[in-house]
């Protein structure tokens, strides 16, 4: 056993580290597969038949989900003991579950890459309980069962820590979000033969995750980091958190209706979906106001300026990506034309990056220097590199989003808006978008450069980091 880390309040928080490290490795993989696909958009047979587009897409999206789950779990293992003011119930279980989840994740991705999908379904006996073949939920049934086991063990561990310790709003909100995440995942096992019904419940996993319970997880992680880096009173933070959660749930749960527009569900969803989801930007706007007002009213100058930047950045990017870009095509009359176009891809990219990738990096940025025994913050050089990583990744993602938005608008005009007869077929439309897709690929390379900067910022090995206590801001 190594020497206890003096920068951690509780030794068991250290189990978060492998989760964060593995999350970032998977993130790198996700970006590489994104680049492969970006190239396949313009050079159609690139890497064919070794990695066909559909496989690359599946790996890209599945890696995203899995690395975010690793990030959330790492965040919970770091945050909950500190909030509960006691050691984690079982650090050994947390490490065991890490290896189970990591092995299952790697095997599944290798399965996607090495075996044709239908073969993977046969190999894993999908026929016994068919759950495969649906977007984002492509995992073999056995992997899904593994995820359930890992989630149960994880919730037990976190739940016991909470029950025995101090119960704060931050940790309770986190726990509610994580329980919701586990409960809604169960709908991935429900796979009705009727396509309309299948889609209806499929969204209960996909939408109620990202526009429901994940917002609770994001809110609590943001609140935790803001309490730590600004020193603002917990009561103030908690009031904000209540407002954010109430808004997220009011708009997010009924807002599921915006996915029921054209799938065979009753017409009433056109109204319900449009009206309620039109308000989904509100919780994200509240998060922006929350983060900026907390930083403005800070009681201390935290040496980790990178973490502060991430905390502010995630709220702004999430507001634009999830809020504004979501609103762009959420009203049924607009969505009639934009459904499933590049506009959806634009929204998906900025929303996932802004809300979830960035909140995980916010927490990693705050926690990693402590987990690595460096102190409250990494050295100046590493932080500068991290800030470079932040701006390169964020600006590249903004460019990707703007280019995909332009592609989406052109696509709608050529393929959907045009009068019958003059509308272009899909492939001819795609041909018109080549310039935009090339530019998107260049932005993707910029994103990779940002990610490399970010990863290089972890190179600092010296333990002679900032040891000086945080300065108090003169009033």
């Amino acid at each position, binding site marked *: 056993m190594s020497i206890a880390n003096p920068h951690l309040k509780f030794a068991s928080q250290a189990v978060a580290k492998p989760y964060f490290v593995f999350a970032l490795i998977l993130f790198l993989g996700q970006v590489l597969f994104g680049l492969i696909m970006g190239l396949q958009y313009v050079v159609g047979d690139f890497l064919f038949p070794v990695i066909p587009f559909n496989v690359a897409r599946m790996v890209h999206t599945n890696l995203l989900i899995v690395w975010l789950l690793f990030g959330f779990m790492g965040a919970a293992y770091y945050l909950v003991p500190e909030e509960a003011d006691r050691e984690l119930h079982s650090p050994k279980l947390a490490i065991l579950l890490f290896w189970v989840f990591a092995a299952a994740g790697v095997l599944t991705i290798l399965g996607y890459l090495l075996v044709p999908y239908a073969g993977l379904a046969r190999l894993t006996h999908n026929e016994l309980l068919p759950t495969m073949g649906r977007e984002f939920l492509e995992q073999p049934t056995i992997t899904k069962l593994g995820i359930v086991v890992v989630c149960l063990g994880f919730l037990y561990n976190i739940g016991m820590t909470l029950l025995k310790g101090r119960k704060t709003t931050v940790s309770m909100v986190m726990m509610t979000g994580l329980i919701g995440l586990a409960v809604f995942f169960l709908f991935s096992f429900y796979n009705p033969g009727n396509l309309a019904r299948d889609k209806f419940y499929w969204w209960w996993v996909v939408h109620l995750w990202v526009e429901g319970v994940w917002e609770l997880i994001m809110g609590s992680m943001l609140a935790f980091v803001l309490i730590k880096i600004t020193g603002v009173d917990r009561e103030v933070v908690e009031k904000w958190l209540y*407002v954010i959660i*109430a*808004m997220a749930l*009011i708009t997010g749960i009924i807002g599921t209706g915006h996915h029921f527009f054209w799938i065979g569900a*009753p017409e*009433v969803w056109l*109204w319900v979906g*449009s*009206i309620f989801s039109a308000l989904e930007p*509100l919780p994200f706007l509240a998060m922006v106001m929350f983060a900026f007002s907390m930083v403005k009213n800070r009681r201390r100058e935290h040496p980790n300026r990178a973490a502060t930047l991430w905390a502010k950045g995630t709220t702004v990017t999430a507001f634009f990506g999830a809020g504004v870009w979501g609103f762009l095509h959420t009203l049924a009359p607009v969505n009639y034309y934009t459904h499933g176009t590049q506009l959806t891809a634009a929204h998906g990219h900025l929303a996932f990056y802004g809300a979830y990738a960035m909140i995980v990096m916010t927490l990693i940025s705050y926690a990693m220097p402590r987990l690595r025994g460096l102190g409250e913050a990494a050295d100046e050089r590493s932080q500068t590199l991290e800030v470079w990583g932040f701006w390169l990744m964020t600006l590249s993602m903004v460019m990707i989003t703007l280019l995909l938005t332009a592609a989406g608008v052109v696509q709608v005009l050529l393929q959907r808006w045009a009068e019958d007869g003059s509308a272009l077929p899909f492939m001819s439309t795609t041909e018109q978008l080549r310039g935009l897709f090339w530019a998107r690929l260049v932005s993707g390379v910029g994103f990779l450069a940002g990610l490399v900067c970010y990863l290089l910022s972890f190179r600092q090995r010296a333990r002679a980091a900032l040891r000086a206590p945080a300065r108090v801001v003169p009033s």
Partner: protein
Amino acid sequence: MWLFILAELTVFALLILAFSVTQQLKPQLFGQSRQLLDTSTGLAMTLSLLSAGLLAALAQVQVRQGQSRRAAWLLLAAMLVACVYVGIKLGEYRHLLGAGLGIEHNTFFTLYWILTGFHFLHVLLGLLILAWLALTAWRHGYGPERCSGFESGVLYWHMVDLVWVLLFPLVYLIG
């Protein structure tokens, strides 16, 4: 609570806007469909909600004067009065469903059900909140110095009232 109420009112504002715009686009359909609604109970429903609001406000005065038991009785009266609304509304819904005028009947009824149904759910939530306030007041959980929770709950009920006052003429009368 003010922010929460603002968020709720924004939802209702959007619903009301959607109803008004669609009414402008389809005046004939809305005019004909509105004939199928029974307006005779409107006054009773409005009075029921507003009286409940008055009783809740009186209860708040009692809490401020340290008379929490009296406040609890007043809230109980408010809930009973509000139940008149619930009863009439349920009767109306049953009648409409019996006549085949469900949520899928036409655009007017789609919006009618969404708007009034969403409000109805708020009334039910409001009743639960009033019940909670009454119970806490009965146990002397509030006093002149600590009545902000009570005020927030009563405020929510007033919002439910306010929305109905806007909703009723819009859906049942104007047009």
